[in-house]
């Protein structure tokens, strides 16, 4: 499935490790175990080291992303504008911690250090959309919007205020 990416690299070239990991993540949105094994064999680096590199860098994920990715900005400006409360509200609403994905795979929650939109702090992004100058109390509403959207495809309608 992903073996074609190896065509662009030379076998046993150790320096190809990180580009290969990036390519794999480009295909699957995360790094599946089997792909890491294939990379390990291709570049001739023990699997433990490949796994070590994959866990060292924040850009690599070992678990698939949820349908919707929520990024909470924890940069200085947002921090001053109480982004910690926003993060807490989202964690509470989704019942997960930052870096995790909900069980139903609908949401992944991530922390970013600065989105570069300080003028509308505190800010979060959900997929491609920006939500600025928000307060913790807005969170349930924002998230409900997304649950309703994705629930449409399913038969069970989401109840008010519940995501599970």
């Amino acid at each position, binding site marked *: 499935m992903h073996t074609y990416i190896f065509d662009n690299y030379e076998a046993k070239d150790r320096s190809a490790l990180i580009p290969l990991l990036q390519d794999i993540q480009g295909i699957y949105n995360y790094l599946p*175990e089997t792909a*890491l094994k294939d990379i390990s064999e291709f570049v001739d*680096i*023990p*699997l*433990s*080291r*490949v*796994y*070590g590199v994959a*866990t*060292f860098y924040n850009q690599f994920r*070992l678990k698939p992303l949820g349908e919707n990715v929520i990024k909470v900005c924890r940069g200085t400006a947002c921090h001053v504008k109480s982004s910690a409360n926003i993060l807490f509200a989202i964690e509470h609403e989704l019942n997960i911690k930052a870096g995790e994905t909900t069980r139903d795979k609908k949401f992944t929650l991530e922390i970013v250090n600065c989105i570069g939109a300080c003028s509308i702090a505190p800010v979060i992004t959900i997929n491609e959309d920006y939500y600025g100058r928000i307060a913790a109390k807005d969170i349930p509403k924002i998230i409900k919007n997304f649950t309703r959207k994705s629930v449409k495809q399913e038969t069970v309608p989401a109840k008010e205020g519940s995501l599970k």
Partner: protein
Amino acid sequence: MVQLTINNIKVNAEKGMTILEAAKSVGINIPTLCHLKDLLPSGACRICSVEVEGYRGLTPSCAFPVSDGMVVETNSARVRRARKTIVELLIENHPQDCLVCVRNKNCELQNLSETYSVREHRFVGEKKDHAIDISSSSMERDPAKCVLCGRCVRICHEVQKIGAIDFTKRGFYSTVTTPFNKGLNVSDCILCGQCILVCPTAALREKSSLKEVVSALNDKNKFTVVQVAPAVRATLGEEYNLPLGTDVTGQIVMGLRRLGFKKVFDTNFAADLTIIEEATELIDRVSNNGKLPMFTSCCPGWVKYIEQNRPQLLEHVSSCKSPHEMEGAVLKTYYAKKMGLNPKDIFVVSIMPCTVKKFESNRAELAEENLHDVDAVLTTRELVRFFKIAGIEFGDLPEDKFDNPLGESTGAAAIFGTSGGVMEAALRTAYYKLTGSNLESLDFEAVRGSNGLKEATVKAGETELNIAVVNGIGNAKKVLDEIEKGSSKYHFIEVMTCPGGCINGGGQPIHQKPEKIMKRMRALYHIDANMKKRNSHENESVKVLYKEFLVEPNSPTAHKILHTHYLDRKKILDN
């Protein structure tokens, strides 16, 4: 030559030396933690920090080369404060359960804490919390005790070239673990235990079988017997502060008797037996166009390695069981019959220098109708602990001799515990079998010593044998690649997983004395040289065993009792 000043002492050092080495040459001790002799410095732990004039910060002496006119201070107040802080920070992220720790009194972190007089807890914070990995049958991994020095990682990657464990994540969450944090039993690990030998704390340790052995000894219905591997007798004395390479065979036998074992046998007996079987198999392969080269199969780490990494070459491995398994098999068949015992009542304990032997004794292929050839394996270190609990003062023990018939052995068996020993012993017997007479000189200097790959050519009658001896599994790759390409010129190859052979096995006493390999080797060669009989085929008890039970080498009975088969573990691991 460069001249530098260390603590106001003028030092002449070689170019390229590190500050650490130069200081050591004039008797100045600098503490180390991540440093491993003979490997590239990593400079990770900073405990060896020193002050170098003209440099703003402190310098890691293990990774910094000396230069002319350098002025070094290894013991200033600033250096001492820095080192103490490092130790304090390490301790605060450590369970501090020394009283119940297996490495109590043999722990480098404990030593550092003592050296720098840490008397209070200055830092209190979050501690890492990890589950203990007890998945393998040989080893335990306890990441909470890990100080992240990386010595295990470097031994595994750079010396053994396995790479089963590595650093993962970073910062506070950094751990040394297997890929995907799975159990060691499903990793590339071959359980050789070299990482245990370099671990400064108890983050890596053997899985103890002491409980099983004690309960077997307490069971009146069990006939509990014990056997001792050749390499154990050359190292056990070190745990009692005897000089490196002291032969303590007699004391071990007496100690084991006092522990309550009904009989004390010698694995060397089975080593002689292994040689007869293996030499016969070799000659058979050479003269009947069998698969060549043939590998020795005494080392379970090596067998596990080839099963996991090159299953396609398994036909090259001799089908002989390893000596202690042969001893167990003979005990539960021939000996049981001779003594009128039920094989199910015999409990065989092996004292081994090795951690993989624990895994080996659990292999289903090495059991007859669910009755394992060997029931429990204790490492050298575990035996010392057992002696302690039992109140046995090792230094005052009188000497004793092994029980017969499975206690007689020759010099050829004694050297099984060192790299090149199995080869040397096999050559002595193969030569005899091919020519009908013994070698003029029994000492094969070419296969002795601690080089990673040793080779020689031996002429026996009209047959010329090309042999190779590999020690340290990292050196096996070249030989294996040659075979895969079909360009291998060898007939017979001995492989031992641990650098130096079993005398440096993963179950041996833990200390970082540099000359340990050579001195322990010498002890075994000394035993060999002082034996009246130095050829395996001269072992009278083995001859009787063949006459009364096995008929002849490689006979159907011998195949059933003394030989085994191997598994394609690559397939198992991939699924």
